[in-house]
């Protein structure tokens, strides 16, 4: 194999339409997946730049590069983009689209046209979000949570931002419907429930949350808009409403949403760990069932975000108790990954390194979550940078790193080329060190009492803030090295054959990049489990 240009191979070459339209009107799940991947990565880079700007402002006390109002707008936009445009669609919409059909032996998702529609809704949401920043009366400054009464009173562009989030929610719902139906109806012959790769199981659990929780976000945001346009008053005490109910409705969606963020990431890790340990995944059914258990238990705990809101003490008691229960299925996963590693013949390839970092960082974030789940501790820690550190540990150290792991694991499959491994190691080292410095320092200063969402702080918090900001520079360097290396690999990397890592799931049994309908003329028949490595060897590359 010499260097054939990418556009001449696999699903890049075969298309009913040529050129850009061949992409924009394509209903092929791989093309849609690649389009998602491009947009999502762009969004991540934009929002990361905003995060770095905030860290710069927080380097020392006082006003440097932004005013208080700009800071408010910056964390709001950073949050909205990271949550709704990056992390929620990141793994399900991008990698889920690329891989789900192939991994279950199907030729596409069940509703290919709706799949394209949901991509367009994503793009519309992205455009609206960008418009909300640059037009009208100024970028929204409510935080990504849109809490009333502030969100119904501020003069900034909240309505447009809420509309954007509404569209993105709709897009997410359609993806969820598509995936549930696909998994039920399109599994290949022989692909029983016990042979589904864990990634598919987690996508399945995620898709149910997308279907059953996201509409609640939709109605909540609609009500905020109605409140702004018509004075609906549903959350206004003077009109018999109750602002705390906004928080209930919002978190009824947004807590399950954190499982939309983390479950697919757990799926990615469950694929990577066995492949690079050359051992079947430990406790397959425990892993599969715990994914569903997490999805279910995730719908029981939303009000742990509201201990300080003024809700009843009884509710605090109930939700605190329930919150501890969710920890159980997550812990099952961590133990099973570690048991899979135990006595495996471990190969520290780049995807594996990101996966290992995931386990550590997710565990730290999860344990911090337990501290916050205990109401007594949370009253002290609520709205401090400890919380910011905690959720970055789970979302960035967890899902973000799993996203990077997935990029390193599967991007070669879909571009047919391998990136440079040495540079990938360097990038990983920078990211790991930078990430932990940035957010461990934020957690520490939070315990000392530094509030979140403030552009300025007391002098005694300076040292740790400086550490955090310097950490963010290392992190930024890591991101740059990683993305440049991946891009370079896509264009100039060494060509690979079917199975560079020695994976046993179906995507490693089709060419890289896969052809238009994934499999040849014959529909695939599955005869072995997803982690059955007997006789499977990695190709040289």
């Amino acid at each position, binding site marked *: 194999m010499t260097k054939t240009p990418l556009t001449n191979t696999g699903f890049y070459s*075969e*298309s*009913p339409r040529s050129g850009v339209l061949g992409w924009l009107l394509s*209903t*092929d799940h791989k093309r849609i997946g690649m389009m998602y991947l491009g947009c999502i990565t762009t969004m991540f880079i934009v929002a990361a730049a905003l995060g770095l700007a905030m860290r710069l402002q927080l380097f020392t006390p006082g006003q440097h590069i932004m005013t208080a109002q700009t800071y408010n707008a910056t964390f709001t936009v950073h949050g909205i983009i990271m949550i709704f445009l990056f992390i929620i669609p990141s793994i399900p919409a991008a990698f889920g689209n690329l891989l789900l059909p192939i991994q279950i032996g199907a*030729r*596409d998702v*069940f*509703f*290919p046209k*709706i799949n394209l529609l949901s991509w367009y809704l994503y793009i519309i949401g992205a455009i609206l979000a960008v418009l909300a920043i640059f037009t009208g009366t100024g970028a929204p400054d409510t935080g990504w949570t849109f809490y009333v009464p502030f969100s119904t009173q501020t003069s900034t562009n909240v309505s447009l931002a809420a509309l954007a989030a509404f569209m993105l929610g709709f897009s997410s*719902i359609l993806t*969820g*419907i*598509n995936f*549930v*139906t696909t998994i*039920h*109806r*399109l599994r290949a012959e022989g692909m029983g429930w016990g042979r589904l790769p864990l990634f598919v199981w987690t996508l399945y659990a995620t898709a149910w949350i997308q*279907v*059953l*929780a*996201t*509409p*609640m976000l*939709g*109605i*909540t945001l*609609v*009500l905020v808009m*109605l409140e702004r346009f*018509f*004075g*609906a*008053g*549903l959350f206004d*005490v*003077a*009109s*018999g*409403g*109750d602002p705390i*109910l906004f928080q*209930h*409705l919002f978190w009824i969606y947004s807590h399950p949403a954190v499982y939309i963020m983390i479950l697919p990431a757990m799926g990615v890790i469950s694929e990577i760990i066995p492949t690079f340990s050359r051992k079947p995944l430990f406790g397959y059914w425990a892993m599969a069932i715990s994914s569903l258990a997490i999805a279910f238990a995730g719908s029981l705990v939303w009000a742990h975000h509201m201990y300080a809101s003024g809700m009843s003490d009884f509710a605090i008691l109930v939700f605190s108790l329930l919150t501890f229960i969710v920890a159980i299925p997550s812990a099952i996963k961590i133990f099973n990954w570690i048991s899979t590693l135990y006595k495996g013949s471990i190969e520290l390839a780049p995807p594996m390194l990101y996966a290992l970092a995931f386990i550590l960082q997710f565990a730290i974030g999860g344990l911090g979550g337990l501290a916050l789940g205990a109401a007594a501790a949370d009253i002290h820690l609520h709205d401090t940078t400890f919380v910011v550190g905690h959720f970055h540990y789970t979302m960035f150290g967890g899902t973000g790193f799993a996203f990077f792991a997935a990029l390193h694991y599967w991007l070669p499959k879909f571009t047919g080329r391998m990136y440079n491994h040495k540079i990938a190691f360097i990038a990983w080292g920078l990211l790991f060190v930078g990430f932990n410095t940035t957010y461990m320092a934020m957690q520490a200063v939070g315990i000392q009492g530094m509030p979140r969402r403030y552009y300025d702080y007391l002098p005694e918090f300076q040292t740790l803030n400086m550490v955090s900001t310097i950490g963010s520079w290392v992190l930024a360097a890591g991101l740059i090295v990683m993305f440049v290396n991946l891009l370079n690999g896509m264009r100039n990397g060494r060509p690979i054959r079917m199975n560079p890592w020695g994976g046993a799931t179906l995507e490693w049994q089709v060419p890289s990049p896969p052809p*238009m*309908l994934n499999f040849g003329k014959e529909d695939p028949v599955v005869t072995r489990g997803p982690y059955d490595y007997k006789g499977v060897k990695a190709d040289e590359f």
Partner: protein
Amino acid sequence: MSFEHRDDTGDRFGMWLFLYTEVILFSGLFILYAIALTTYPQEYITASNKLNIWFGAANTVVLLTSSLTIALAITAIQRNQIRLCISLCVATIGLAFVFLINKYFEWSHEISLGIYPASETLRDMGPGVTSFFNLYYFTAGLHGLHVLIGATLITVVAVMVAKGKVTSDRYVLLENSALYWHLVDLVWIFLFPLYYLII
């Protein structure tokens, strides 16, 4: 080259999933209602008495009947009685408009009394009554929007039946539009007693 397959059961399953999302969407408003009702039981009775039961009851009958006609339309197409199927679709659409026109008169009446979100009259009636009418307008409004969407869907399918694109052999589009229409009915089945019949 694109992916061709036929699986009506899967198509219907997708539609059911979509209906679940609609139920959750409305449930947000019903949660707010349930809480306000426990907070202001007395005021809710006062407010509910201001609504005209007969408007509500008439609309209930209209929607139930439209649910019947669209259900019959499916049997008709299964038995290849195309003319009958189209007439039943048209009847459903007609009933949808009767519903909306009824709603229009009802709302005009209330608005003429000064009862609408953020109005002076409402503010003077106190928070409980205000919250009732706010919820009433937005829940019924969202429901009305669904009536409109459902009627549009059925119109499109009726045209496709007439053109022979939806046939006795392949009618899942009609089934899915009918499912959507029944959902509109289901929401109303709860909305009607909760808003009109509280005493």
